[in-house]
């Protein structure tokens, strides 16, 4: 219908007014044309930007999204993953990548693809951008390959994503304990490459593949020596122990290092093979091998035991070869190239081991480092390569040396101390000589022959005294216990010492001396005194000390029994002659433990000693010992009074208190001559002596007082610190005169009634409590 109508419309009837018809197409049709053109142009540019499609085979393709994941080449988006498929066996992932046209050259044989994933480890942090942008496929290409569209991806990201023209070399060693992919390789401290892989070669030996950066390739030459630097190195050497951490990077795996120690060699090619040395020292020891045979090589380790020359390491034991026919072991030694020419035919090699003997400690450093081999260069010119090694000689103390310029001294004692040959003889702490031998003297008594260095000859006087220095000395004094070890060498053996006490006498002629037991004994040179004891238990000749105010001032020289008493002969150190005056008091101090306390506890360890108090009379020789509590021995100033009582339970040591405050002590308890009264000596401390007046009243206070009442039992314990009771006194106000020291007071058995109970506590007066 409409066609017909249109047809009718087109037939113009004659005579009708018709709008002028424009010939051709309306300009309005420009719009769809433009639209077509724009659309076509857009699709065409889109199509043009598309490069070829490539297929990459991966073992796994984590984080690869079709339509999203980008293929990056040098950081530029070179394509997009369009599809991800699995192959028929489900063994591979095939990723189809739509390349951009400008990246079409990537579709060539030799291009390597890998998946860039974030790797965060101590060793390396890579692919950080993939954390934000997701994993991507990276490419690296070699120019000039044939066009290709199927590729096999790399299993791991390469270490050097851009430069493919690096040098790849191989390092071999018997075992490669650490090092791994990514371990840095240093040349003189500069990081020049990385370990690419750690694998096995055809023979099954471990092998490390190392990549040297392109710009550092000429650092490697045929003379390069590679060595491993462990993550941390603890090196002990005589005098120092050091812990080395080469670099933070190498903290986990250690690192590799190389250098050439001689002249540089020729350039190397790819896949050159080098020997990996365990450490730098081994790398430096590259001289020609020399062979040394030893009887005993225990402790020597190939690759570790060093060869030293005058204490400096100059080489390394590289191999140990037992030679069964000779029952010896042959060491292959390589010296540092600089020292290799020193190995001439008359060179000597000696094993140095730790040597602990009475003569001293030798080679102590080898305790830590293991034995080493001392190398002594010879004087000959002819180089040698086969040697017979020596075991370490027992280095004697150089007797011959000492005889040349020493003076022999004969020392005797009734009983020789345990002193071995080689033991030191000290003078004021310096080693002045050595013991040479122990022998039986001409008169049959044991003797020690010692050599004194010539520098100390002037100290050998007629009154020089020798004494034994024990290995360790236990010093027990009042309030102090000290262990003294004179010196490390003396720890094993002890020694002797000598000195002159008092005025030096004339030089000795025959040099025969007696050995004293101890320094105190040697130094006690005063006129001897004799002290009689009722009981000599614990007294030791030569050991038991005399002490004045706690300070050793002499020594008991001899103890013997005389007329049912013990007589001790003692000598004082110089300067303590005042103790030899008549009136001096001596008492044996023994440990005493009772309810009143513990006394003389130091004697439990150090043995008994004799406490001394000086007298004021003429010099005397014979003394009688007094009990331990003798007043003069208490060494405590005080104001003494005497308390008399018909009977009392108070004993020496009981406190004397005033108003419940201890102000003194009962120091002795005696029976009067007629036996009817008891005298207590009390000492009031000086600062409280003015409390004692002529009208003071003294009474006993029992320890525990129990009152049994109708409803209660009251137990009063004035003081638990005085279980044996105590003496209390009170001085009424006014009226009393000062008393002289030694005055006698009567001791009441109970508190007098007229003495106000001072101990009564005052009632508290607290105003704010009244309202209650």
């Amino acid at each position, binding site marked *: *219908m*409409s066609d017909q*109508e*249109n047809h*009718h*419309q087109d037939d113009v009837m004659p005579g009708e007014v018709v*709008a002028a018809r424009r010939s051709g197409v*309306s300009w*309005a*049709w*420009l*719009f*769809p044309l*433009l*639209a*077509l053109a*724009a*659309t076509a142009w*857009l*699709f065409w540019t889109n199509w043009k930007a598309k490069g070829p499609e490539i297929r990459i085979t991966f073992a796994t393709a984590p984080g690869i999204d079709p*339509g*999203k994941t980008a293929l990056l080449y040098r950081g530029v988006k070179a394509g997009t993953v369009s599809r991800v498929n699995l192959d028929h066996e489900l063994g591979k992932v095939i990723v189809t990548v739509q390349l951009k046209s400008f990246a079409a050259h990537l579709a060539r044989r030799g291009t390597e693809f890998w998946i860039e994933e974030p790797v965060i480890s101590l060793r390396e942090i890579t692919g950080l*951008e993939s954390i*934000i*942008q*997701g994993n991507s496929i990276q490419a690296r290409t070699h120019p000039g390959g044939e066009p290709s569209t199927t590729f096999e991806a790399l299993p791991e990201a390469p270490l050097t994503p851009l430069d493919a023209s690096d040098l790849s070399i191989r390092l071999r060693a018997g075992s490669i304990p650490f090092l791994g992919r990514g371990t840095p390789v240093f040349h003189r401290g500069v990081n020049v490459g990385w370990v690419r892989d750690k694998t096995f070669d055809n023979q099954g030996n471990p092998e490390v593949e190392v990549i040297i950066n392109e710009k550092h390739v000429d650092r490697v030459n045929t003379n390069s020596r590679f060595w491993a630097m462990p993550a941390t190195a603890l090196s002990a050497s005589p005098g120092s122990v050091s812990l080395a951490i080469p670099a933070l990077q190498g903290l986990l795996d250690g690192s590799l290092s190389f250098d050439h120690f001689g002249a540089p060699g020729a350039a190397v090619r790819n896949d050159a093979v080098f020997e990996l040395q365990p450490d730098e020292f081994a790398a430096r020891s590259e001289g020609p091998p020399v062979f040394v045979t030893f009887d005993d090589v225990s402790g020597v380790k190939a690759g570790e035991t060093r060869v030293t020359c005058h204490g400096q390491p100059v080489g390394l034991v590289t191999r140990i070869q037992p030679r069964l026919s000779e029952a010896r072991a042959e060491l292959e030694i390589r010296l540092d190239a600089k020292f290799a020419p020193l190995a001439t035919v008359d060179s000597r090699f000696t094993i140095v081991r730790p040597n602990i003997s009475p003569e001293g400690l030798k080679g102590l450093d080898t305790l830590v480092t293991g034995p080493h081999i001392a190398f002594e260069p010879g004087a000959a010119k002819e180089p040698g390569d086969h040697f017979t090694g020596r075991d370490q000689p027992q280095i004697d103390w150089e007797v011959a040396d000492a005889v040349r310029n020493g003076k022999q001294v004969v020392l005797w004692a009734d009983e020789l101390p345990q002193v071995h040959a080689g033991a030191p003889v000290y003078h004021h702490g310096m080693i002045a000589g050595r013991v040479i031998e122990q022998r039986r003297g001409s008169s049959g008594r044991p003797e020690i022959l010692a050599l004194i260095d010539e520098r100390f000859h002037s100290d050998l006087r007629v009154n020089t005294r020798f004494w034994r220095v024990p290995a360790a000395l236990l010093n027990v004094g009042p309030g102090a216990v000290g262990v003294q070890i004179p010196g490390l060498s003396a720890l094993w053996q002890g020694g002797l010492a000598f000195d002159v006490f008092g005025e030096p006498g004339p030089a000795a002629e025959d040099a025969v001396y007696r050995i004293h037991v101890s320094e105190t004994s040697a130094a006690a040179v005063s006129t001897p005194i004799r002290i009689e004891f009722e009981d000599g238990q614990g007294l030791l000749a030569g050991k038991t000390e005399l002490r004045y105010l706690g300070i050793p001032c002499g020594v008991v020289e001899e103890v013997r029994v005389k007329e049912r008493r013990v007589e001790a002969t003692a000598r004082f150190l110089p300067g303590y002659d005042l103790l030899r005056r008549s009136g001096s008091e001596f008492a044996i101090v023994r440990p005493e433990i009772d309810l009143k306390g513990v006394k003389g506890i130091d004697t439990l360890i150090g043995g008994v000693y004799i406490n001394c108090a000086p007298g004021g009379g003429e010099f005397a020789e014979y003394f009688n010992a007094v009990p331990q509590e003798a007043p003069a021995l208490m060494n405590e100033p005080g104001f003494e009074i005497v308390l008399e009582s018909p009977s009392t339970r108070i004993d020496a040591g009981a406190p004397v208190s005033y108003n419940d405050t201890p102000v003194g002590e009962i120091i002795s308890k005696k029976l009067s001559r007629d036996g009817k009264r008891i005298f207590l000596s009390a000492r009031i401390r000086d600062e409280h002596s003015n409390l004692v007046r002529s009208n003071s009243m003294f009474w006993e206070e029992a320890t525990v007082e129990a009152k049994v009442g109708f409803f209660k039992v009251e137990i009063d314990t004035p003081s638990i610190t005085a279980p044996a009771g105590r003496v209390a006194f009170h001085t009424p106000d006014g009226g009393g005169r000062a008393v002289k020291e030694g005055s006698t007071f009567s001791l009441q058995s109970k508190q007098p009634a007229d003495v106000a109970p001072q101990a009564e506590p005052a009632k508290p007066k607290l105003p704010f409590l009244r309202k209650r």
Partner: protein
Amino acid sequence: MTDQTRLDLTKSLVAAGIVFYFPANLLPVMNITITGDMESLTILGGVQELADSGLMPVAVLVFFASIVIPFLKLVCMCWLLMLHGTDRCRPQRSKAFHILHQVGTWSMIDVFLLSVLAAVGQLGILASVVPQPGVVFFALVLLCTLFAADFYQPRMIWKPAASS
């Protein structure tokens, strides 16, 4: 402007709209990058994305507003133009044209929303919205239908079939 010119313009604009409709729907309209994860979305892809993320009402809204309505507009315009000059279905045509005109006032809402999104959604590395060529074509489709509907006057529907 003569009716013939209007008719020509309408026809050419509808034709251009049909041409633009294809790139508008095939090309991505925007790139959304959220924490480095870049996504290139076509209109249909955007609808699917919305549906996938559970925003079904919004997805339906966008589907109708961005795909169905422009399509229906073009179809409707074609229908009007085809029946132009005849006297068939005139009331229906008039009704349809009115609806077309009403809906047309809202059709640019998508473009407007995208421009707002592109302007606001610039959060650096976290998120960004970048308009893509598709949106230009989409806008052109809408403009074409808009102007086509504007040039075609309702009275032209009622114009007598033959110029009698």
